[in-house]
């Protein structure tokens, strides 16, 4: 039996990924994120691009907890 449907407007795989287009999840993109360090920690640069260094902790032992 099946369901009778009209002619589709688009191909079923239309919303699939198009080869060659950059993907946000690509391996290696993490290291390009400003303020995100390789040791899984982050700096104030992840929160702001303006004078970010001035917003880092005053002592190196303090955790760097930048605002959202």
């Amino acid at each position, binding site marked *: 039996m099946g369901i009778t449907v009209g002619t589709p407007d688009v191909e079923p795989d239309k919303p699939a990924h198009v080869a060659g287009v950059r993907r946000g*999840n*690509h*391996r290696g*993109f*993490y290291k390009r994120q400003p303020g995100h360090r390789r040791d899984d*920690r982050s700096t104030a640069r992840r929160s702001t691009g303006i004078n970010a260094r001035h917003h880092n902790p005053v002592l190196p032992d303090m955790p760097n*907890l930048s605002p959202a």
Partner: protein
Amino acid sequence: MTTRQAAPAEQRTLTDVAFDPITRIVGNLGIYTKIDFAAREVVECKSTSSIFRGYSVFMKGKDPRDAHFITSRICGICGDNHATCSVYAQNMAYGVKTPPLGEWIVNLGEAAEYMFDHTIFQDNMVFVDYCERMVKETNPGVWERAERTPAPRGDQHGHRTIGDIMRSYNPFEGETYKEALVMSRLTREMICLMEGRHVHPSTLYPGGVGTVATPQLFTDYLVRLTRCLDFVKRAVAMNDDVFDFFYEALPGYEEVGRRRTLLGCWGAFQDPEVVDYSYKRMNEWGNRMFVTPGIVVDNQLVTTDLVDINLGMRILLGSSYYEDWTAEETFVDKDPLGNPVDKRHPWNQTTLPAPQKRDLDGGNYSWVMSPRWFDKRTSDFLALDTGGGPIARLWATALAGKVETPYVRSTGHSVQIDLPRTPSSPEVRLEWTPPAFPNTIERNRARMYFVAYAAGMALHFVDQALNEVRSGVTKTFQDFKVPKDAIGCGFHEAVRGVLSHHMVIRDGKIANYHPYPPTPWNASPRDFYGTPGPYEDAVQGCPIFEENGPENFKGIDIMRTVRSFDPCLPCGVHMYLGGGRTLTQSHSPTFGTLADQGGHG
């Protein structure tokens, strides 16, 4: 509700009573019963759904990374459970492991979801069946007794009599009813903090979350959680009082909704210390989940192994509007461990809808299929139910004895929950012990205990997440590559029970995708072996305690039973407009001029 007299059958006078649609649930469910009013018993029951979803049909060809955003729309109340489950399935397919902080954030969002959804369902929908107005109509004798019966836990919840509690459940005006709505707002805010949005999360992705982890995020969550705890402690005490009273006032009420113990739980809350989403290690990390996956048959824990659970899944037909797919393509013949995968397993299912007239006399009568779990010990296809979620989760977790956290622990025979002191209530220790058998009351009772369980777990998750943040570890997302060909499966608990997503990727696109939420298990019709689904099974043989006769029968005992499973057959997504009728399409730009012309599409 409609009634009509049927001819006598087997010397019994049976009356057809149909409840279609069932209200106060999500979606479209009909319950068709045959009742023997003289013997006060439901003799036969069939559950039908008249709506077709079709996600498994239109997911094909999509980018797999979109799966959680699309499948979230399966449900308008537990969409984030679907998104989470889809993310788990994608993590397995992509071979990516979420950073610990990301995992704690997902767990916190899901804990808030359980608290939100169970509270709103219990206090705003289930308790309408137990409130003053309803009980006055259906069982005036019980209401009179409730007015006279003092509430044993009055010191904990502040109500003097059982009647007072039942009055507070009255819809739109009762104190508890209104308070539950306030709680649902708080808990939704908690979800939004963690997952960006409720009910369709915006910051949940495979590989992690986009939530920015700051100390503020977790303290905002904790403030709301603390306020909820006051309510949860009172709610558990009120639940116990009301349900104990029903047993006392209506001797034999434990038989209402009674069913053989056939419970399934697919586990919830991953432990970031062990979870890597690899199929080969699924048993190991599955057993470390903070709600233990498990199958409980006749009060015994059969397995906690997610691989066993996965391979035992069978989607049967028999009374559903579909054609068989055994002649269609086999997508996965062996799992990554080399075990054979059945043709009726979700990985190999092809959905072939066949719309037809409903035939309740031996024909097809539902759009729901019949998921079963193959028990290799007995070669039975078990019609597992979820009991609305909490009873199965608590039962499996209690018997497995694997959960050990500061606030919640499993003892091997029970679950203990310690809730700390909060602004208006002292600290409380709750203990849930499995009942002798599942029935309507026990399914409902477990629900509020699980809210307490989720709240206790949330406290633990906040502690763990803050430990990460305080040490400066703020990573919440791991990048990954989408493989050309892969398979994945995700196991999670939707609010009302088991949830699995099975995905096959080919050429970087989805080749097959099958979500199996709890209601297909619970609302399934008779399969081709003639085994009735759980609603049918629980309602068949159900004694009638309602004082009304056939003329003004409300079917309250049947409704209580069906609602105890927390039915959720979400709205349809397919519309067939016939031969090319065109819907008007218009577009309203955000800052455009069409808005003031009423041009909303």
